């Protein structure tokens, strides 16, 4: 790689150096790590945060989970809370896949890869969040089917391992294949990606359902033991995912100068309008059942919303989430979101943060409070937990940035192709 022309190959040239897929990926990666000052600054900050996280995690491995604030009473905390939420974000990407492939929405087709890339980064974060939650990470190989002892199909956790990794592979394949074809200037062969797209749509639902089953299958935890958990998960995922994608659109516009068409934006907003309402409805149903019925089973819900016996660490959190949920739903329903991009971003941010609290700490922690013997031990994440979590978020954002830059690079290398982008392959 000595001259500039090596990096901007004329693709029709038969002697073109990048013909193999690995070479293409390598070239893409190289291109994706080029950028302006802002890009380097952004990556530098993320790297710094990731390093702080890596360091905190190493200390945790060396000294034990005692450096977290988790206890035998509250044995899952911030890590699993983030994990649960990120599964939702990963599944949320499917809300672009469905219109793009199911309804042949051509404009969505042009940007659907963004949703799939978000899914890749989110699943990577999920896997990292599970890894840092293990007391003995060096024994992770016990989980590998074949060489370990995989408790399948009994343990819901093994199901989760399968669906998460499967979803990651599916999306890696679809994204990579479409980008490569775009780059080569060839039409993607439907046989090579459409079946995977169909599978990935069901798969997206399954990752979230299985993750919900992880909790709602536990009879001893009445707060989780509700049939509404999986549908609620999905509803809030389909708010948080598209909300994040809308924010991404605006970032891509601002940072890279690539303007995303209004069509996909409108569609995503309309999706959120429905899912946010469904989500609110389900929250209300659950709160009603808990409080109107009363009885011992409501202790966790009471702890979460009102505080229990003077313990109320989560009360301000959950009411913030409720306020964000309601406010953002109101904004999404108003015509303002179409008119002012600032309003849209604010609504998206509130929906995202609201879902993060509600599906994260608001779901995991009250499951443990009061404990199964009805003792109340509260939990606030330790600094180590915050550092590790921030580190994983940084890694996720870095991955997403690189992936998006690959996408932008390919599209700017082969702009002409967009006229016959994959959508036009569809038999009308």
């Amino acid at each position, binding site marked *: 790689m*000595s*001259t*500039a022309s090596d*990096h*901007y190959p004329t693709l029709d040239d038969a002697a073109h150096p990048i013909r193999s897929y690995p070479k293409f990926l390598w070239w893409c990666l190289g*291109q994706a790590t080029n950028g302006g000052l802002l890009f380097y600054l952004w990556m530098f900050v993320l790297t710094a945060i990731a*390093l*702080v996280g890596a*360091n905190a*995690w*190493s200390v945790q*491995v*060396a*000294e*034990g*989970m005692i450096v977290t604030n*988790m206890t*035998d*009473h509250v*044995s899952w905390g911030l890590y699993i809370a983030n994990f649960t939420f990120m599964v939702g974000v990963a599944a949320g990407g499917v809300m672009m896949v469905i219109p793009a492939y199911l309804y042949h929405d*051509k404009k969505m087709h*042009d940007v659907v890869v963004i949703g799939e890339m978000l899914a890749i980064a989110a699943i990577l974060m999920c896997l990292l969040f*599970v890894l840092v*939650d*293990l*007391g*003995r990470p060096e*024994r992770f190989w*016990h*989980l590998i089917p074949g060489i370990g*002892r*995989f*408790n399948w199909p009994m*343990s*819901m*956790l*093994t199901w989760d391992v399968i669906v998460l990794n499967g979803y990651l592979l599916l999306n890696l394949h679809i994204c990579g294949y479409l980008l490569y074809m775009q780059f080569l200037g060839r039409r993607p062969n439907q046989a090579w990606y459409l079946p995977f797209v169909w599978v990935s749509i069901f798969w997206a639902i399954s990752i979230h359902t299985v993750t919900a089953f*992880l909790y709602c299958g*536990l*009879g*001893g*935890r009445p707060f989780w033991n509700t049939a509404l958990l999986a549908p609620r998960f999905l509803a809030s995922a389909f708010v948080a995912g598209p909300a994040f994608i809308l924010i991404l659109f605006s970032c891509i516009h601002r940072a*890279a*100068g*690539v*303007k*995303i068409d209004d069509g996909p934006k409108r569609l995503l907003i309309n999706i959120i309008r429905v899912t946010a309402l469904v989500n609110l409805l389900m929250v209300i149903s659950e709160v009603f059942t808990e409080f109107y019925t009363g009885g*011992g089973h409501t*202790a966790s819900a009471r702890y979460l919303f009102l505080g229990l016996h003077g313990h109320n660490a989560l009360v301000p959190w959950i009411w913030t989430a409720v306020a964000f949920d309601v406010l953002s739903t109101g904004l999404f329903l108003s015509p303002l979101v179409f008119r002012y991009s600032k309003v849209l971003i604010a609504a998206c941010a509130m929906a995202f943060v609201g879902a993060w609290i509600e599906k994260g700490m608001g779901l995991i922690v009250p499951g443990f409070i*009061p404990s*199964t*013997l*009805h*003792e109340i031990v509260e939990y606030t994440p330790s600094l180590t937990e915050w550092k590790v979590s921030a580190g994983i978020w940084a890694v996720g954002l870095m991955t997403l940035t690189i992936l998006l830059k690959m996408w*932008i*690079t390919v*599209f*700017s290398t082969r*702009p002409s192709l*967009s006229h016959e982008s994959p959508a036009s392959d569809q038999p009308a």
Partner: protein
Amino acid sequence: MTADDNADLHQSSPEPSRLLPILNQPATRRTALKAAGAALGLAAFGKAVSPLWSIPENVSVDEFLQQHYKELSDTDKQKVFARLESETQQKLGVEITISDPPPIPGVRYGYAINLSKCNGNGACMEACNKENNHHRGVQQSYIRVLELPKGTMDMEAGNTTYDHTVPQDDKYYMPVQCQQCDNPPCVTVCPVEATWKEEDGIVVVDYNWCIGCRYCEAACPYHARRFNWEEPEIPSDEINPDQGYLSNRVRPQGTMEKCHFCLHRTREGRLPACLEACPTGARVFGDLNDPESNINWVLQNKRVFVLKEELGTQPSFFYFFDS
């Protein structure tokens, strides 16, 4: 989408150099800078994760590669036990023996507690702590004794952290430990089969196989599982040298543990440490399959109940009152 839109979407950067800045720059310089950046990043990463270098010191290759308990042959087991014995010798200067008594064929253990007799003195908890080489830093024990107001079974009214004199007149006391469920949710959920039910009904944990995900702890409805949040610390002279591989040996950091009915004692015909320590005689232990056993006498002559029966866990642990 119009052609203009398309151009906007895909070509919006007016000069390609914004997206492909490499075009206008000497590649070598940029490549060199990138390489330097990557090298720096790697070095920083190495430094950041340096606390991990303690793993090879603490986890030997043999331990890392050790198979699941059920896959170990007898010779493998002997090697593992010898390794653990010598490690304890080196670390703490204590000579211990690790045994591995198998379940006695035909025996199924059951435990019962006479709530009329239990006065909440906590001797069982203390005995458990000593017998099972619990971490001394925390008041760890497999047993929790709930203090409940008379007239209710509602655990929410209970308390395990009382420190007044016992018994109080208006209270009664209910010790809770692993119920050795017949249908144990903790075993169902474990992703790596690090915990299972033995033939005599005791649910055990392979401390060398558990990955520390704590799913079982979330699943247990009786708060019977304990996690080793840090390396247990026990003064050398307090170590109980009579250790079972699946029971009271000193547990590694980052793994799960639980009550095992003192299987290193009970499978050799002795009684659990908590029972021996109980000054009121509230505890009854024995073989459920033996019609002559104490525990069967209780089941036949007392009105016994189990905790949280509605969950379908089918405990082998019973409670009763004298009436």
